[in-house]
Structures are given as structure tokens and as C-alpha cells.
């Protein structure tokens, strides 16, 4: 489903963000991507949703190759991938309901479909009572749940999470991780980048470890 084949990414001539990365992620997998800040985790995720292209090598996502995909096809690929970030990236002028619905509206869903799906997600993420709240009224954990809701409303085959617990206290982090596991249990693959080793420990999940842009372990 996702495959990296000898991928290199250089941002400057002699500055390699990623070097010779190869791995596969299958349908329904849960994979941690670990490494210190600057080890190339975000770049690797960007290569999956094709905000960046490899300097060398090839990335395959859902049968589309980074080498042959056309610019016009990238939005359609992104509709099948959910992405969440450390800083949530919510629209500050919209409430919880509208932020989640936004994920479907921009892809041209009918009003009825948008409404049904959004309400379903609000209920699933236990955000129903906060549906009219604006981002500035939410806690960090709630904001991340809204971001997850926006990603899930399009029913992606994979959820990419870039340090999703980076701005959240340890207790809430565990809740977020549990939520991600629940999402995974329903069939969505999850690739979660984190430098928080405590979250990874004892999870029993596969771990891709990056060091200075190189894949040092696939456990």
C-alpha cells in the first residue's frame, strides 16, 4: 500500500534529509516512526502525501508513484490520506463542527453527506457537546481530536500523525494514542511519528527508527 524504494531526499546539494530509505506498510498496519527532532520524520511523511518528492528513488502510495504522478492528481491522492500535526492546524474562525465538515466540503461532498458524516465523527470522538466551540475554547487534547476528526471524515486508508502528542500533556497523550489504536482496529493504517519513547515502549507495534536521515531499525 505504501512503499519506499531506495528513497533519498536532499534539500541542498550536500544536505541529505533522508538517505536510502526502503520499507513497506501494508493495509491496516500500525507503525511508529521514531527519531530525534531533525532526523527526517516530517520529511518522510511529506513524501507520503507528496508535498515533497524524492531526489532519488521512488515512493508508491496506493498504486501511485512519486515518479509519475501528475500535479493535478495529488489532491485526489490526499483525499485518501488523513494527516494530523503537532500544531493541529485548525481553522480558528470555524467551530468544531465546521472544522470537521471542512474536510469533506472542499472535496465537493453533498450537504446531506457532509452533515451525516460530520455528526457521526463528532459522536465517535466524543466531541458532540463541543460542536459549537471554537478552537481557542478547546484544550490541546480536544483540538487534536478535532484534527483527527477532520482527517477521518473522508475515511482515509491511512492516518499520518506528525508528533500528534507534542503539544499535549502525558495523560492526554495516552488518550490520543488509545484513540489512534481504536481507529487502527477499525481498519485504517496508522503511521505515527514521535520522539516520545514512553508512548512506543510496550505498545507491541512495529517501529521504524530514523537517525540522521537513515533508517536504523525496523523492529
Amino acid at each position, binding site marked *: 500500500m505504501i512503499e519506499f524504494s531506495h528513497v533519498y531526499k536532499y534539500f541542498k546539494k550536500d544536505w541529505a534529509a533522508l538517505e536510502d530509505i526502503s520499507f513497506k506498510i501494508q493495509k491496516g498496519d500500525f507503525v511508529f516512526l521514531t527519531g530525534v527532532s531533525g532526523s527526517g520524520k516530517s520529511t518522510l511523511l511529506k513524501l507520503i502525501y507528496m508535498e515533497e*518528492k524524492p531526489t532519488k528513488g521512488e515512493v508508491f502510495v496506493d498504486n501511485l508513484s512519486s515518479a509519475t504522478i501528475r500535479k493535478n492528481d495529488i489532491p485526489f*491522492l*490526499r*483525499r485518501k490520506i488523513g494527516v494530523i500535526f503537532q500544531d493541529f492546524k485548525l481553522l480558528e474562525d470555524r467551530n468544531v463542527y465546521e472544522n470537521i465538515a471542512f474536510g469533506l*466540503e*472542499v*472535496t465537493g461532498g453533498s450537504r446531506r453527506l457532509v452533515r451525516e458524516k460530520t455528526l457521526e465523527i463528532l459522536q465517535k470522538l466524543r466531541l458532540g457537546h463541543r460542536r459549537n466551540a471554537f478552537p481557542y475554547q478547546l484544550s490541546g487534547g480536544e483540538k487534536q481530536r478535532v484534527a483527527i476528526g477532520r482527517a477521518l471524515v473522508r475515511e482515509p486508508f491511512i492516518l499520518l500523525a506528525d508528533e500528534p502528542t507534542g503539544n499535549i500533556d502525558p495523560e492526554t497523550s495516552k488518550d490520543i494514542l488509545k484513540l489512534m489504536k481504536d481507529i487502527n482496529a477499525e481498519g485504517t493504517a496508522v503511521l505515527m511519528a514521535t520522539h516520545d519513547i514512553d508512548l512506543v515502549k510496550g505498545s507491541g507495534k512495529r517501529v521504524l527508527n530514523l537517525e540522521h536521515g537513515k533508517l536504523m531499525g525496523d523492529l
Partner: protein
Amino acid sequence: MIIIIREAIRGMIHNKMMVFVTIAVISFSLIILGGFSIFTINGLRFINLAESKIKIEAFLADGLSTAEVDSLSKRIGNIEGVINISYISKDEAYKSFKDRLGKDKDMLEALSVNPLPASLEIDLDPAYKTLENLDKISLKVALFSGIEDVSYGKRWIAKVDKIIKVLLLADLIFGIILLVSSILLVTMTVRLNVESRRDHIDIMRLVGATDSFIRIPFIFEGLIASFISSVISASVIYGVLFLLTSRFKDMRGDMNVIAVSIFILGILIGIIGSKIAVDKYLKERV
């Protein structure tokens, strides 16, 4: 479509200040451009008016018979560039001079004879009203027997000709600078508006919005902003023209043409400016 319109209106409400600045900048540019066109159009009209008054006067020797005058007129009429010749008799010259003197006309009446010669007023095709052609034609006319003297205000025309050339060149350069800077100013303002909403655009791209979906609300916003600006500036221009034309009868504005042109130009600037600004932003990022 409903979503796009809703997004555009939402964007405008959320960015009231930027929308206000955009409208102010477009209106200001259009008013300056409009004022400039009024100035140019009236300048050109004034030049035309001045040119239409340029005529060659050929003074006739005293005592020419009507047949001789007719034959002279015919021969002068054959010169290239001459379109009309009118005969001013001694009496007519005397009368018109007396009228021009006004209260000093007694001076003329004190003379016992009419000192003024009869003359032929030669009108030229506008294309021939250049200094060079006037010189050439005057020389040809002066060579006919029966012509005492030829005059066409050479020194005055030479001066005016020079001033007009400089003014037209300055007007053209200024006009081009004004138009280019208006478009640049509007594009930059819209660009600022786009930049201030980069987070919004980035999120749209992240969830899989196509470039055209992202672009249309911005262009729609540009259209609304430029429509408002066009209404404002066309009204100002119309009002100013109305006041000027009612005060100065000679001043013309072709009010409707200018107001409509400003209106259309404003909308074009708004749409093109928005499209350039959004496209540039979208191109820089994948």
C-alpha cells in the same frame, strides 16, 4: 458553487481589514487613472481646437478684379493640402478689425481711407498643419502674382508645436507608469491578502482541495472587491465630470464612456490581480 460563494463571503468577513485596504487601493488607483484620462482627453481636445484655428492668410494687392481673385483662388486651391479658401474683402477686413478694436475703434475711424488689404483665408487639411507644410504652402502662395504678403503666425505655432510634443510624450509616459503601477499595487495588495491566509490555503490543500477550488473563492473575492471599488471610483469620476462640465462649457468628458471604462477596467484589474496573486502562491508550493 454555494460552498465557493460561502467561502468567499466568509473570507471577506474574516479579513475585513484586508478587504477594506484592497477596495481603497483599487478605488484610489482608478480615480487617479480616471482623472488622468479626463486631463488627457481635454488636453487633446484643446490641441485640436487650437489646430483648427490655424489658417494661412494671403494678403492681396489692391485693385485686383473679381476674375483675378477667382483665378488666384483656383490656383491656390490646387495646392496639395488646401481644403478651403474664403475671400475677405477690404470692407469685411475693416469691419472685423473695427469690432476687434472695441472702444478704440475711433482710431480707425479717424483715418479717411481703409488701410486694410483684402485677403484670402486658406484652410488646410489637419494633416498639413505642421510647421514644415505651413512653410512650404505659404511659400508657394507667396510666389503667385497678386499676393502681397503671407502670414500664419509662424513663431507662435513653432512654440506651441514644441510644447504639445513634450506634453504628449510626458502624458504617454505618465499614463503607462500609472497603469502599470495600479496593476502592481492591486496585485501586491491581493497577494498580501493571500499570504495572510496561507494557513487556510495549506489546510485546504492538505485535505485534498484542487487548485481551482482554492483559487475560485479568491477570484470571487477579487471580483466583489473590484466591483465595489469600481462603483465608488466611477461615481467619483462621474460626479467630478458633472461638476466640471456644468462649470466649464468648453470642457468635455464623454462622461458615460469614461465612467464605464473605469468600471470595466476596475473589475478586470481586480480579477486579474487576484488570479495572478493566488496562482503565484499555489505554484510556489505543492
